[in-house]
């Protein structure tokens, strides 16, 4: 059950307590009395029954202990409201003894008033009532299935005679170091390549990737035959990250004069910080043959396990 007791909950409890006490006192102070009266044990019984129902309605998974705690808590709040009303009543009337005010505040009408307000006061506290544990035999939800447990690393078949765990158990900490090592593992796998030359890209395609506020209507007039050259040395270092991007300012330098007129002068900061992604599908086919050459295979240790027995799945 979520613990959702907040400052608003506390405030609502205070307001309900004050309102309940004042209203209870007012009702107790009234001249008119109900003609019917119920005995005190009957009233307590009725209150406990309604309190018990309320606790269950608020939290159907409440444990037996929690349920009784709820009833006790509600009864205490109800008693506190009645006592508070009696004290205020005594103070306003100037009674020397509390017996009279308590009797008046415990009559049916003010008691009902205190009873209703006790429900309001206690309501925010329902989140703290203990809930019962899931029964072993109940229907399991998907999240409790063996598949999920296995995914979460629970021991499958833990009642077996002998289980040997291969590989390391999850370790706390050391994650960042390992992530850096893994990332650099990939970076090391690419050899630095220096090549002269350029990639020709259609200007229209590049302008389509520019921030719209930097491109004016002249861009529409640029034909597909207009090309721009992007130096290979600027492209190659980015290829391993599956994205080739440059700032609009950089692109502006490479554009032919005719196409440069299709750009408006934008904010200098934006031109440096924004990025224009160039189309890989146009770039990669133009790369020189050796640009994507990888060094000799350097598979991890697990790939050098010698003879591997092939696994056969029975297929249909």
């Amino acid at each position, binding site marked *: 059950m979520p613990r959702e007791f907040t400052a608003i909950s506390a405030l609502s409890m205070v307001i309900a307590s004050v309102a309940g006490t004042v209203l209870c006192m007012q009702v107790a102070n009234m001249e008119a009395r109900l003609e019917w009266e119920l005995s005190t044990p009957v009233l307590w019984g009725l209150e406990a029954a309604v309190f018990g129902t309320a606790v269950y309605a608020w939290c159907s998974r409440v444990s037996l202990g929690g349920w009784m705690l709820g009833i006790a808590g509600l009864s205490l709040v109800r008693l506190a409201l009645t006592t508070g009303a009696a004290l205020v009543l005594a103070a306003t009337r100037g009674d020397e003894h509390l017996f009279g005010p308590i009797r008046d505040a415990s009559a049916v009408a003010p008691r009902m008033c205190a009873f209703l307000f006790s429900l309001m006061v206690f309501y925010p506290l329902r989140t703290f009532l203990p809930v019962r544990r899931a029964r072993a035999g109940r229907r399991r939800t*998907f999240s409790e*299935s063996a*598949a999920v447990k*296995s*995914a*979460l*690393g629970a*021991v*499958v*078949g833990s009642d*077996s*005679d*002998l*289980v*040997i*765990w*291969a*590989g*390391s158990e*999850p*370790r706390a900490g050391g*994650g960042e*170091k*390992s*992530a850096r*090592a*893994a*990332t650099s*593992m*990939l970076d090391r796998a*690419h050899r630095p390549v220096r090549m002269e030359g350029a990639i020709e890209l259609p200007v229209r395609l590049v302008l389509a990737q520019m921030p719209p506020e930097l491109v004016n209507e002249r861009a529409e007039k640029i034909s597909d035959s207009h090309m721009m050259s992007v130096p290979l040395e600027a492209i190659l270092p980015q*290829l*391993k*990250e*599956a*994205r080739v991007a440059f700032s609009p300012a950089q692109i502006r330098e490479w554009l032919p004069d005719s196409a440069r007129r299709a750009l408006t002068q934008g904010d200098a900061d934006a031109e440096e910080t924004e990025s224009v992604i160039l189309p*890989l*599908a146009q770039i*990669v086919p133009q790369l020189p043959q050796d640009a*994507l050459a*990888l060094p000799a*295979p*350097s*598979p*991890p*240790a*697990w*790939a050098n*396990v*010698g*003879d*591997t*027995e*092939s*696994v*056969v*799945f*029975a*297929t*249909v």
Partner: protein
Amino acid sequence: MASVNYALKEISCKIVYYGPGMCGKTTNLQYIHQHTMSDKRGNMVSLATPGERTLFFDFLPLEASRIHGFRTKFQLYTVPGQVMYNSTRKLVLRGVDGLIFVCDSQWEKMRENFDSFRNLMDNLSSYGYNLETAPYVVQYNKRDLPNIAPVEYLQYVINPRQVPSFEGIAIRGEGVFEALNAICSLVLANLSEKQKTGVA
């Protein structure tokens, strides 16, 4: 977190299909489910959105041939590829014995492949695992589509270490069992190696 039960002569391993959203991980599992003998596999558990996107993960228990008298069982999992489900991906990776990284070969998915691979490394590292110790193979899926990147470039971006890789068309079953067999063999060989060296 492979388990070897000598009493029952049974080995159980966990294989996870990892990759960006819509790359074909679930399709791989569905093909395997449809094309394995019903007495050698369990039910495929799948929790997907109405748009057929994996919401939690897919699960398929599978039994392979006996190896050295041991029954070999594999639990195949996929992860949800969508970026927002990273905590689920991380959970599924827990206790993984082997990985199949499924790439979407389309040009426009290249960056997603790259990001997903980096995400895999990050998530593995949160458990203290890494690709130096966890066997993995790569499947370049969707090779039947028109706008695909050449394998050389996919290899350059995703697989510079040149671990076993396979071109695939999962929807037609091409490269599906090849990748599965390769990773299962590697996992078992590593398990055997670890036990020999006393790591297990």
